[in-house]
């Protein structure tokens, strides 16, 4: 499965090399274009990929990872020569590195930052700045060999990922075979989101309200449970048996769409339309986080984020996610302009 992931990367880097080779072969014709954005007139010029330099370090959500990775490639194709590192370690771990260790410039996240994380960020002098970059429809998937499940309710979903032992415990007409579960690890934003959206409402506390702690206990106490921060491990696991079920970001489903079936939730299939208009119950925002201080101190980070926000919609569908609303993107761009001290 790693091979599957590596091959396109090698392919793309070969293409990138060719492109950059072509680019450097024809600089003579280029200068005509340059005067259109001279540094004196256009304040954005100092943030262009081919003018900024230095390294960029990002870490966090494995869901946002493929998107950031794509934007990184585009940024490099446009002439950025520094190093961009993106680690896929889960949203929680990403905030840990951004807010506690403070060694990253950008935190990728598939959930909004928690108050406690904002607190720890302030302790090290970083005021987290949120940029909405897209929308994910969390995909609940089974193998395409599975012919019996196509549609579940949220209540059934909570049952499938907790106390039900056999499929027949959820619906009597389903086979009496054990459910094999493959879910993202507890450090991942996808796990947190699923617990919050599905497990917590099904496991109310004493006050009758949705209880995240109880939801977490319910899903982690389930039998035949495999957890991994590596979504490809989960894909492999779900492919392994018609009685397996798992969930992860939509991009990983789309990459394996011919061998996986995605389930409809409450009768709504995850599509671009249902994710964007919020009809799909498990649609959720994707973010990248940085801080104004970092944007001012490191123009390359500011440049990358500006590039990210202005170009993300060209790539997002191809990566497997859905565009954020224009208002959300505009708000993100405004926040960026404020942070670097520029009039929008």
């Amino acid at each position, binding site marked *: 499965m*790693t091979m599957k992931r590596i091959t396109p990367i090698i392919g793309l880097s070969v293409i990138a090399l060719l492109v950059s080779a072509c680019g450097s072969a024809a600089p003579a014709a280029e200068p005509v274009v340059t005067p259109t954005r001279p540094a004196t007139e256009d304040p954005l010029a100092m943030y262009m990929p081919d003018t900024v330099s230095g390294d960029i370090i990002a*870490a966090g959500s494995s869901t946002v990872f493929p998107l950031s990775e794509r934007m990184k490639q585009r940024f490099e194709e446009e002439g950025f020569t520094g190093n961009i590192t993106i680690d896929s*370690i*889960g949203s*929680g*771990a990403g905030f*840990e*590195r951004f807010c*506690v260790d403070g060694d990253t410039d950008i935190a990728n996240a598939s959930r909004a930052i928690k108050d406690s994380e904002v607190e720890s960020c302030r302790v090290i002098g970083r005021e987290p700045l949120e940029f909405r970059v897209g929308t994910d429809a969390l995909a609940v998937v089974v193998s395409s060999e599975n012919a019996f499940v196509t549609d579940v309710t949220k209540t059934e979903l909570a049952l499938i990922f907790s106390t039900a032992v056999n499929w027949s415990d959820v619906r009597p007409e389903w086979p009496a*075979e054990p459910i*094999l579960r493959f879910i993202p*690890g*507890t*450090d*991942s934003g996808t796990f947190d989101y699923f617990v919050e959206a599905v497990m917590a409402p099904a496991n109310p506390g004493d006050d009758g309200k949705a209880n995240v702690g109880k939801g*977490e*206990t319910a899903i*982690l*106490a389930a*039998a*035949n*449970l*495999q*957890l*991994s*921060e590596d979504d490809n*491990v989960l894909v*492999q*696991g779900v*492919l*392994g*048996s018609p*009685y*397996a079920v798992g969930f992860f970001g939509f991009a990983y489903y789309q990459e394996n769409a011919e061998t996986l079936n995605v389930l409809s939730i409450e009768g709504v299939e995850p599509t671009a339309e249902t994710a964007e208009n919020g009809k799909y119950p498990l649609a959720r925002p994707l973010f990248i986080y940085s801080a104004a201080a970092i944007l001012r101190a490191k123009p390359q980070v500011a440049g990358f984020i500006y590039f990210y926000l202005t170009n993300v919609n060209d790539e997002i569908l191809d990566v497997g996610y859905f565009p954020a609303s224009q208002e959300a993107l505009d708000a993100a761009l405004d926040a960026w302009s404020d942070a670097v001290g520029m009039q929008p």
Partner: protein
Amino acid sequence: MTGKSIALNGIGFPARKEGLRKRRRIGETIIQFLLFFAGSFSIFITLGIVVALGNEALPFFRNPEVNLVDFLTGTKWQPHIGAFGILPLVTSTFITSLIAMLIAIPLGMAAAIYLSEYASMKVRKTLKPILEILAGIPTIVYGYFALMFVTPLLRSIFGNNVVQIYNMASGGLVMGVLILPLIASMSEDALNAVPRSLREAAYGLGATKLEVALKVVVPAALSGIAAAIIVGISRAIGETMIVAVSVGAGPNFTFNPFAGAETMTGHIVRISGGDLSYDSIDYNSIFAIGLMLFFLTLGLNIISQRIVRRFREVYE
């Protein structure tokens, strides 16, 4: 172990020259000191590891949520929700190691006996290096070999619904292949060290080649063979990448070799891969597992030393 005894002999050797007048030689003293340092270095490292592990594991055992009895007897391991029973990790470690040894001991022994007793000089010279190449393959490669080749093979034999995609059997089998050359090579050394006179005496009494090999040479080399096997078991228990890739990613208390589970080492790899926050109970728990692993292998090594001493047959 062998290294140590050689070093001891080396130091003891000058004693035989006692008749000559002792003369202090600076160079000699320095070398002796360096050798002593080399010998004690590994001991200090070991002590350091124990202290470091213990230090980090202590907060785990001090945590009011944890009690030692539950830790050793509980059947659910999920630190995130306060379930701290290490048994599922221990059982899967033992099951994968057992499967590995079922492959490695018989095949390794057979290979060793063949190489030492039957193979001609020429055959041995070609075969032994090839066997040792097996031990030189990186274990991550073995891991994907288990996942991509052995698991599908098992599934085609026993059926897709019997054998899960991540399972202990394939990891164990491949681990057996990894450990086979280790056992074969060490046992072959032990068999080779048996004096030729023993074999000749047995032939003189009319024994067949098989009888000589199995009834004379193997018993004479038993201590070395036992040591090889114990080292193999320790290797199996500590093996990480193969099980991390192919055995699964969730603690599972089961004795079914075709079910997915997670060994102690595999769990440490997965949990620490997610950049755990320090001072969380999850983080401390991996040191408790590490300590457990350390004691397991330490225990095995002590047993192996006992066995070696007990069965040692000394020849002039």
